[in-house]
Structures are given as C-alpha cells and as structure tokens.
C-alpha cells in the first residue's frame, strides 16, 4: 500500500514531461489527451488508495466512534493519548521485536533452504512444494493447528520434548514465551515465500560466474558463496528483507487466534491494538491514529528499499 502512495506524484509528472519534450502547436491538445489517458488509473488510485489513506489520517484527528451519528475534530488528542498509553508502547515494542526476530530468521532460513534445494539434484519440485505449502495455506487454519501442536498437555511439541527427556512448556500461556512462539510461527509461514524468491534469484545467476570463481581459486563453497552468490543475490535479498519486514509489521492472524495479545499484553502488536480499539471498543479515531503510526513504519521501509535499490543493483 505504501508503494502505491508514492506513485501518483510520478504519474502526474509524466504528461507534463512529455509535453515539454515535444513542444508543438498541438501542445495543449496533446497534454489534454495525456491527462485523459492517465485519468482512469488516476481516478482508481484516488478512490482505492489515496482517498482511504486521507480518510484514515483525517479520522485520526477526530473522536469518531464506530456507528456514532456525529464526531468532533479534536486535533492531536488521539496521538497525545496514544503516546501516553503504556499499551501502545508495549504493542510497538512487541511489533518491533517480532520484526527483528522474524525478518532475519525467515530471510536466513529461506536463503539456506533455497541453496540446499538448488544444490540438490533430485526431488527439487517436491521440496519446493513442501516449503511453499505454509504460504498457500490459510494462516487462520494453520494457527489452529499450531495451537494444538503447542498445547501444554497433549501438544506435539511438548510430546517430542518429553520423548527427548526435556521439560515441556506452556508456550502460548507464558508471558516470556508467547511472543517468541508467535515469531516461530511467523518464520515458518514466511520462509516458503522467501525461499521461492531466492530460488528465482539463484536460477538467474549466470553459471559461468561459478566457473570463473572455480578457476580463480575459490575452492570452497563458502568462498564461492561470498564471491558470487551473495553479491548477485543483492537485489533479491533487499526485496525479500523489505517484504518480510512489511509482512511482519502486519502480523495479526496468529495473534488474534492464539493469544489475543495476551497473556497480559505480552504479545500485543500494533495491528491487534488497532483492531481491538477500533472494532472491540469502537474507538475509530484512536484506531486510525494507531494505523497512521503503522503506515509511517511501512512507508519508511518502502523508501529505504527504493533508495538502496537504486544504489545497490548491479547487472552485468
């Protein structure tokens, strides 16, 4: 969504630039035609993206409650209240922790699995499918499966731990582990997607670079990875990191199904706070303010990606 938010500026500039590039007598008519041609896209974008975005930002300056007949402009009061609220800070900290654990985990494991599948000879299709399954499956349904697996008494995880002679744990019911249990599920869910992107990146690395590396003395797999694979995957890695980060910021399904932010707010995350405020306590204005903070994070990630992407992409 943040990608699209930056787009209209670029779109609107295009017809003007064209008109300047071809200064003719029909300039006025030409630019009118250009506007007419971009209009459908522009209108759709206004209706579907910019409009709602402006609406949310406007809403965050009101005391509107869901279903209420009227509202009043209250300026920055929502933000004041939010920044003073301990739950918001816990929620923000939990979200950042979740992102900080899931992104490196899902990126590193996704890359590792992609490298393993790529270097293997047989059953590539099977492994690809297996690791991609979590991406295709409905996360809500999978969350319920995880709930059973993590169940303190008859869950598979504790069962395996017992079999190995280790102590079981109430993973989702303990304040110390609830968020990290969600992180594990997050990694499990995201790594298949990352793996597919990395596989596509690996396939596009020219084979002759590895040949050259071999002859240049890169004898170990690690030195070939450092010399060829890792730098050539740069653009893919950047994309994967940003997409993983944005998706991790959006974590909600598992929280809603498994912990509802608990126990005692230990797994409260931004989107869950927004949902609870907006649809459980009907404080739409306040929820809008939380959303704006969320959007700021996602937008800055997108900006980082586009800045780095421009600088660090190298093609032969």
């Amino acid at each position: 969504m943040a990608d699209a938010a930056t787009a209209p500026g670029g779109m609107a500039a295009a017809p003007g630039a064209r008109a300047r590039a071809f200064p003719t007598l029909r300039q006025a008519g030409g630019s009118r035609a250009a506007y007419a041609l971009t209009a459908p896209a522009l209108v759709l974008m206004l209706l579907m993206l910019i409009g709602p975005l402006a609406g949310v930002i406007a809403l965050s300056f009101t005391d509107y409650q869901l279903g209420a007949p009227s509202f009043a402009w209250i300026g920055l009061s929502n933000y004041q209240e939010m920044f003073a609220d301990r739950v918001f800070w816990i929620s923000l900290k939990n979200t950042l922790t979740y992102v900080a654990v899931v992104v490196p985990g899902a990126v590193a494991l996704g890359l590792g699995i992609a490298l393993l599948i790529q270097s293997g000879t047989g059953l590539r299709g099977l492994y690809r499918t297996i690791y991609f399954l979590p991406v295709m499956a409905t996360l809500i349904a999978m969350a319920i499966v995880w709930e059973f697996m993590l169940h303190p008494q008859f869950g598979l995880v504790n069962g395996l731990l017992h079999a190995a002679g280790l102590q079981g744990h109430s993973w989702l019911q303990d304040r110390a582990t609830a968020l990290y249990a969600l992180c594990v599920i997050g990694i499990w869910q995201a790594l298949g997607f990352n793996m597919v992107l990395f596989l596509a990146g690996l396939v596009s690395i020219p084979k002759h670079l590895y040949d050259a590396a071999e002859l240049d003395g890169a004898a170990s797999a690690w030195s070939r990875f450092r010399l060829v694979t890792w730098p050539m995957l740069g653009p893919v890695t950047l994309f994967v990191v940003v997409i993983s980060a944005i998706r991790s910021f959006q974590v909600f399904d598992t929280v809603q199904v498994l912990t509802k932010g608990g126990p005692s707010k230990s797994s409260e995350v931004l989107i869950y706070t927004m949902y609870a405020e907006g649809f459980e306590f009907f404080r739409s204005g306040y929820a809008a303010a939380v959303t704006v903070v969320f959007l700021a994070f996602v937008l800055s990630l997108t900006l980082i990606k586009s800045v780095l992407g421009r600088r660090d992409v190298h093609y032969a």
Partner: protein
Amino acid sequence: MAEIEIRALRKAFDSTEVLKGVDVTIEEGEFISLVGPSGCGKSTLLRIIAGLEPQSSGEILIDRASVDGVRPSARNLAMVFQSYALYPHLSVFDNIAVPLRMKRLSTLERAPLIGQLLPGRRRIERGIRADVERVAEQLEISSLLKRKPGQLSGGQRQRVAVGRAIVRQPRAFLFDEPLSNLDAKLRVHMRAEIAQLHRQLKTTFIYVTHDQAEAMTMSGRIAVMIGGELIQVGTPAAIYDDPHDIRVAEFVGTPKINSFPGKVRGDGRLEVLGHVLQATTPSVAGDCRVCVRPERIEMSATGALSGTVVHLENLGSEAFVHIGSAGMDTPVVARVNDPRQLPALGAAISYGFAPDAVRAFDAGGKRIATSAAPRVDRPREVAVG
C-alpha cells in the same frame, strides 16, 4: 608453462557421446587452436581440461602429472570465457585482483572487517595492488580500474577478462571463444593482440573457436575437431593445404573448398563430370570427391569444364565468381585476384584446374593420394584441358 597431454579422453552426457576418444599432446609454450563447428565438443574438451567437467574416461596430464580429480582451482590454469564472466558487482581492479586474493589471502584475511585488522593483510594487499596495476598497464586499461564491468564496452571487458587470467601467471591459458561477442573489426584487432600476448608470455595457450580464420591467423598448430573426434592436428598451412579428411577440407578456408563428384577409373586416373584429369591415384576404382580450393580454379577459354556465372562477390581486393555447372548441386567458386576483370553475370565461361590443385577423397571422406599423370607433350600442366 606446461605441457598438456590428453589420452583417450571420452565424455558422454547421458547416452550422447560428446567426445569419442581424444588424443593430443600440447607442447610447452605452444599456441594451439581447437577448431570445429558448433556442437563438436571443443568447449567440452576445454572445460574438462580446466576441471569444470569430469571426463567419462581417459586421462589428462599436465606436466606429466595426472590432474584427474584435481580441483580447477588447484590446476593453476586460467580461462577466458566467451561471456567474459566478470563479476558484475566488483570494479575492474577487484575483478583482476580476485585470483590473487584467493591465492595469497587466507579465508579469515578475506573476511570483511576482521580481515582488515589482521597484520599481514596490508602488506599482501600492497603486493596485489602492484601486480594488478602492472597487468592493467600492460593491457592499457589503467584508466578503467575503478569502473564496474557494466560500464565497459565489449572490447574493454575482454581485456579485463584477459587481465584477470594473466595476473596470476598460470601454467596455461584456456580461451573459450573469447572473441565471438565482439564486432568484426574489433575481433580482427584482438586477434593480433592475443597473438602478441602469446609471444610476450610464451605460455601454453589453448584456444577454442568455431571461426577457422581465428585459428588460422593466431595459432602455431590447429586441432580440427568434428563430431567429438580430433580429425587432424597440424600447422595452419598443413591443415589448409593437406587436409586428411574431406570434413577438414570443407571446414577450413572461406569460401569453402569446391567439391566435385568424381570417379577413380580402372587405370588409376581421376574423372570429374565426365572429363578425365591429368591426375592419377594408386587408390582402388570407385566413386570419390575431387576438391579444389577457389584460388586454384582457373577461368580460361581453354578450360575443359564450363558453366554460367550465377553470382559475383566483389570484396574490393579480390572477388569470387560463382559458376553454376551441369551435374553440380552447388556452384563452383573461383577467386579472381583482380576484381576489375570480372565476367558478367550470366556469362558462359570455361574453367579448369592444375593437377596439383586436386585433393581427392574416397567415399568415406578419407584423403586419397594423387599425383600428376606424366605428360611431356604440353609445357604447362592443366589437369583439365
């Protein structure tokens, strides 16, 4: 410098046999070209020598030591690839420095950050810098050292690739069609440069190409490879003038050698298109091909063979006349040294060739010996006429 010996080398991918037993010894300091049409297995042979591909059977010896199972990095050979295979994320300097860094720095010293702190690293880097700059100067790419490969032209990339190969002074250089991505003019120029490089370095060069002109102009010896076999190995002159196989004769030389359907008569004389040649062969009677290079076709009023001019190719310094003859599927090509004296298109002309211009091949494509039939009644020997 190294002597490379290839013994009974075979390579099969699944059920297709790409190399069918290759035997050749490449002398120390020699420039040898592996030439052949696409798909003949020459690149595969080069990759096996480099160690990038294992052979199915046979043996490769470098300096009389078997290198089977030795990793490419340990064979100390350098390779220049058709696509140059430069690392796109590294500058020209770093590209050339890669083999030196791999050789002189340990894994730990190459590591980012930590590597910089290690005591020996600075000193080794200074040595590497000096070597890279020396090579860059030699190849006249000193001004490009800071650029990325993406900012270079094809010819410049080619030089960088050569620089990366020569910087660590390998035992031998392997070139895999290094000029085929360049435009025609640059290709001719780089031909001279690579030949000059060989004279300078005096190292073994193995040069794979499908372009027989490259092989002819640069190498000391040519190995003609067709269908996974080395058909003939010899000097360019020998390959051109004394081909052992009709495939070699047809592959080497542009335009292609003229191939007439012929016959060995019972008395040992050769016969072409119904005309008996002044050439004899000890070979047994039967069908054969009689081949004559375009420059040996003489157009004269006394020529016994005749046809009409179907096409003219004027290259400025020389010209080729394509003569359509009855009984021939393809036109006979004759070279004319003076393009100002070209016959008109469609003109009927006569032509012939001297007996010593004849290269005859039996039905299996193998060369058969020929000699001029003794004739004393004519001062000038014209095979047909």
